[in-house]
């Protein structure tokens, strides 16, 4: 069995300093008096799991339980304080759609910029440009600066660019909650197409219906710790009043 993602004993600590030090003088005084303490905040504690290639993996938990932090660790944005993450294959991170969009540039310019942010080559983007525009259904707005777009329109472009390539691993953080219901259906269809093509999907969602519908395996986080790891049988435990 090959694994797409292996997370071994990952912990993530942040320094939260309690009283805000905003000038150098205070910093020096505190440093001198040895009062410069930071409160340690543990966002993730000793997380270990493996995701098989081609699996659909859901992460559930309340707000602040560490779901997004875990996704950021997997996609390499954050380095874990201890432990290690091994990822096999290319990642398409849909952590926030349209990361790096510049409001003053047009949709066309932003599509190319976003493509290069995700590490695609320019020739590749030129080839796929029409397909991206077609999927986002924004043919009439190609040369309009993105600051005049609605947030739904921006999200459409972001989704279209990020899923234009067939990644080995797709990471989705609450992004399917954007756009109208028709576009949401379209997004879900695209994710299902990717899944049937062998892409591993990691999904974070507060829509428990969506998790139930898409995911095979579920990780339940609580206060940065693993509460449970299993299959769909966790859903009634997580949300007892959930109705199928």
């Amino acid at each position, binding site marked *: 069995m090959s694994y797409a993602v292996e997370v071994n004993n990952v912990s993530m600590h942040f320094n939260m300093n309690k009283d805000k030090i905003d000038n150098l003088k205070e910093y020096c005084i505190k440093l001198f008096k040895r009062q410069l303490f930071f409160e340690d905040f543990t966002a993730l504690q000793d997380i270990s799991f493996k995701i098989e290639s081609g699996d659909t993996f859901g992460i559930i938990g309340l707000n602040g339980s560490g779901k997004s932090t875990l996704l950021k660790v997997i996609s390499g944005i954050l380095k874990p304080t201890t432990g290690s993450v091994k990822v096999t294959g290319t990642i398409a991170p849909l952590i926030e759609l349209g990361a*790096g969009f510049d409001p003053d540039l047009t949709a066309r310019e932003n599509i190319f910029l976003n493509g290069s942010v995700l590490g695609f080559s320019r020739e590749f983007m030129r080839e796929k440009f029409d397909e991206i525009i077609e999927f986002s259904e924004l043919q009439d707005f190609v040369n309009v600066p993105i600051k005049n777009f609605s947030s739904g329109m921006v999200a459409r472009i972001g989704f279209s660019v990020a899923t234009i390539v067939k990644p080995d691993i797709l990471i989705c953080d609450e992004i399917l909650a954007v756009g109208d219901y028709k576009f949401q259906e379209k997004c879900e269809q695209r994710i299902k197409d990717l899944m049937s093509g062998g892409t591993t999907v990691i999904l974070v969602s507060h829509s428990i219906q969506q998790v139930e519908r898409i995911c095979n395996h579920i990780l339940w986080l609580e206060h940065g710790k693993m509460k449970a790891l299993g299959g769909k049988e966790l859903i009634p435990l997580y949300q007892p009043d959930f109705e199928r």
Partner: protein
Amino acid sequence: MKAYFDAFKKYHYLLEDLVAKDFKLKYRRSVLGFLWSILNPLLMMLVITAVFSNIFKSDIEYFPVYYLCGYLIFNFVIEATNGAMTSIVQSGYLIKKVYIPKYIFPLEKSSFALVNVLFSFVAVLIVILITGMPIKATIFLIPIPIFLAFIFSTGLGLILASMNTFFRDMGHLYSVWTTAWMYLTPMFYPISIIPDNIKTVIYYNPLYYYVTYLRMLVIDGEIPGMEINVICICFSFLFLLIGLLIFKRNQDKFILYI
């Protein structure tokens, strides 16, 4: 090593796109657009030349060209390092959301300054033609000092970017240092009028060598000797090496401070 090279190959489009974006945004809605990259040094030169040929008498031959050479190098380094210094903090919105090799951001700012300075060299050509200064063949070697100053700025930019991420005081400090640096770089005075004790200080200023290098090519028509070449190369690559080391050691912590 090969992994680094592959990553750079993958992300060099991003570098180009970001430079293009900066360029577009800098001249957005201005009527003359990128012509300002040429006009700006020209107008600066007019002001300074007016001041130094009327108020302070200067007997430097071809003063406008002399000044412009110094001004271009100095401005290039300052623009590159200032941009690089704040690049990590300003790109926080990207660094927090996607994995991108972080050195791309300071490198992008020094590359952007490089593009600008190349345009500005048109101003030098214009001034040479107007003042009737004989054009020397060595002018074709101009890319050498520019490249060395670029390496130097990138190294210094990496150091400043790392420091500024942890201490935002850097920006304020650096602007003071910039003013001091301007006077320590022989831009509008010849090094010969400086007292010996201050000369020693200037000899530790890397910019002095880049400026002198450029002037030898443009004004004197000499090929710079071994000594100045070695000094320039040493400064450039020493700063680049220190910058890379500091940046690499700290880059994983940046995200916690932006």
